[in-house]
C-alpha cells in the first residue's frame, strides 16, 4: 500500500517563504485533512506533491521512493491524482472524455495505430471507455457521460473533477476544497463519497474549509499556519489544541 511522506519540505518564491520544514505523512488507508487559515500553504503542498512547484529543501517520498523533482505526469503515473479548488475541467470535452483523458498515462497506442485503427488500438480505446464509465458511475455521473463539461451544473462539475482524478487509477488522491460551494446535502453526499473512495484502497489527502466535513471523515488532521505545521493528530485533539485556536481566532492578548 502506498505511503506518502513529506520530510522537512520547504518552498520559497523569491523572498517569500511559503512552506517551512513541513513534515507529515499519509499512511495506507488513511483520510488526512490539511487545514489552516487562508494563505497557510495548503494548496502549495498539493502543488509540491504533484510536481507543479519545485521544493527548495526536504524530500517528498512515495512508496519509499523520492518523487520530489519528478515532472507532474510522472508523479501521476506513480499513482497520485488531484482535483482543483477552482474547477479546472477540460470544458469543451464531454464528461466521459474528461475521465478518459486521465487514463493517458496508463495507455499506449500511438499516432500510427490510431490512424490505422488497429485492433489493439480499438480494444484499448474500448477498455478506456469502460473504465471511464465506471469512474463516472462511482461519482453518480453515469447519466451525464455525454454532456459537455461546461454545461454541467456546478455541483456535478465538482464530482466530475473527482471522477477524472479517479480515472487514472490512483493509489492516493488529493482533493482541494471539494466541498467549496456545495449545499449541505451535497456536502453530505461528498463525505459519503470520500469514505467510499478510501474503502476502495485509495488514500485521501483533503484540503477543506468546511469543518463538518473535515471532522467527520478524517482519521487525522494536519494544521498549517504561515507555512509551518503547527499541530497534527486526531480531529478531537486538534480541535482543542490552543495553537490551532490561536491560529484561527487570534490569541487573547491581541
Amino acid at each position: 500500500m502506498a505511503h506518502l511522506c513529506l520530510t522537512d519540505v520547504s518552498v520559497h518564491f523569491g523572498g517569500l517563504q511559503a512552506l517551512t520544514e513541513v513534515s507529515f505523512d499519509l499512511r495506507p488507508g488513511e483520510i488526512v485533512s490539511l487545514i489552516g487559515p487562508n494563505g497557510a500553504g495548503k494548496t502549495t503542498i498539493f502543488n509540491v506533491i504533484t510536481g507543479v512547484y519545485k521544493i527548495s529543501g526536504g524530500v517528498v517520498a512515495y512508496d519509499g521512493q523520492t518523487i520530489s523533482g519528478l515532472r507532474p505526469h510522472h508523479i501521476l503515473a506513480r499513482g497520485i491524482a488531484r482535483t482543483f479548488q477552482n474547477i479546472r475541467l477540460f470544458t469543451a470535452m464531454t464528461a466521459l472524455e474528461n475521465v478518459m483523458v486521465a487514463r493517458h498515462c496508463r495507455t499506449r497506442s500511438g499516432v500510427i495505430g490510431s490512424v490505422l485503427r488497429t485492433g489493439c488500438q480499438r480494444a484499448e480505446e474500448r477498455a478506456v471507455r469502460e473504465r471511464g464509465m465506471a469512474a463516472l458511475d462511482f461519482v453518480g455521473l453515469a447519466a451525464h457521460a455525454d454532456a459537455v463539461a461546461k454545461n454541467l451544473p456546478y455541483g456535478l462539475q465538482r464530482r466530475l473533477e473527482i471522477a477524472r482524478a479517479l480515472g487514472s487509477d490512483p493509489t492516493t488522491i488529493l482533493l482541494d476544497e471539494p466541498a467549496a460551494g456545495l449545499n449541505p446535502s451535497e456536502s453530505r453526499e461528498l463525505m459519503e463519497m470520500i469514505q467510499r473512495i478510501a474503502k476502495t484502497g485509495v488514500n485521501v489527502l483533503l484540503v477543506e474549509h468546511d469543518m463538518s466535513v473535515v471532522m467527520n471523515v478524517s482519521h487525522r488532521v494536519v494544521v498549517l499556519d504561515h507555512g509551518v505545521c503547527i499541530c497534527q493528530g486526531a480531529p478531537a485533539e486538534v480541535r482543542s489544541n490552543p495553537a490551532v485556536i490561536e491560529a484561527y481566532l487570534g490569541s487573547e492578548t491581541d
Partner: protein
Amino acid sequence: MDYLFQQLINGLTLGGVYALVALGYTMVYGIIQLINFAHGEIFAAGGYLGVILLSYMASQGLMDSHPWFGLAFALILAMGYCAMLAMAVEKVAYKPLRQSSRLSVLLSALGMSIFLQNGLMLTQGVYDKAYPTEFTHGGFEWLGVRVSYMQIGILAVTALLLVLLNTLVFKTRIGKAMRATAQDKVMSALVGIHSDKVISTTFAIGAALAAAAGIMVGLYYGSVRYDMGFVPGIKAFAAAVLGGIGNITGAMIGGLIIGMVEILAAAYIPAGGEYKDVFAFVILIGVLYFMPTGIMGENVDDTRV
C-alpha cells in the same frame, strides 16, 4: 454553366490542398499559440522529396508499371520525412523557448523558415524541378466538365486525410491528449499527459499533412521550386485565420473558401488571373478587420487543438 462547374472542381482541388496546409498552422497555434512560419517550408520539403522519389522510380520504370503504388509510396515516405523534420525544427527552434515571450518564438520561426528555404536552395538549386507527370495524364468528361484523374486523386487523398485527422483528434487517446493540452497545459500534465510529447506529435501531424499537400501541388502544377512554400504558406495561413485560428474544422472550411475564391476570381474578374494571389490576402485583411476571430472563432478557446 459548364465553365462554372469546371471552375468549382478546380477550386475544390486547390482549396483542399490549402486546407491541408492550413491545418498545420491552426493545430500548432491551438496548442502553443505560435504562428509557425516555417510550416510553408515543410510543405516545400514534402514537394521536393516527392519529386526526388518519383523521378527515381520513374527512371526505374516503376511509375509505368505501378503508378498508384509508386505515388502512395512517395506520399507516405514524404509524410514520414516531413513529420521528423518538423519534430526536429520544434526541438531545436521552439522547445528551448517554451518559457520565453511569444515574440521570441515567432522570430525563431521566421528564422527557421529562412534557414530551411535557403537549405532547399543550396541543396536542390534555384531552378524549377519538373515532376514526372506522364502517369498523371488522362481523365474524363462528365456533364461537359473535364476532370483529370489527377484531380480525382488529389481530392480523394485530401478527403481521406481530413477524415483520418478528424478521427484522430476527436476519437482517439492522442486526440484527447492534444485537446486537453491545448486547453490547459498545467492541468493536462496533472492528469498524466507529457505535454512536450503531445506538442511534438502535433507538429508531426501538421507536417505530414503539409508534405502530402506539397506532393499534390507538385503533381498538379508539374514542378516545384525552393521558394514554393512561401506564397501557399501565407495563403494557408490566411485560410486558418479565416476559419478561426486554432479551430480544425475552421481551417478545413477556410482552405476550401480561399481555394474557391482564388479560382473563381481568376476565372471571372477581368485580368483576375494575373492578380490571383491578391484575393487570399484581401480576404485575410478583411477577416482581420471585420471579424478577427474568424468563421468558427466564437468558440476559439474551446475547440482549438
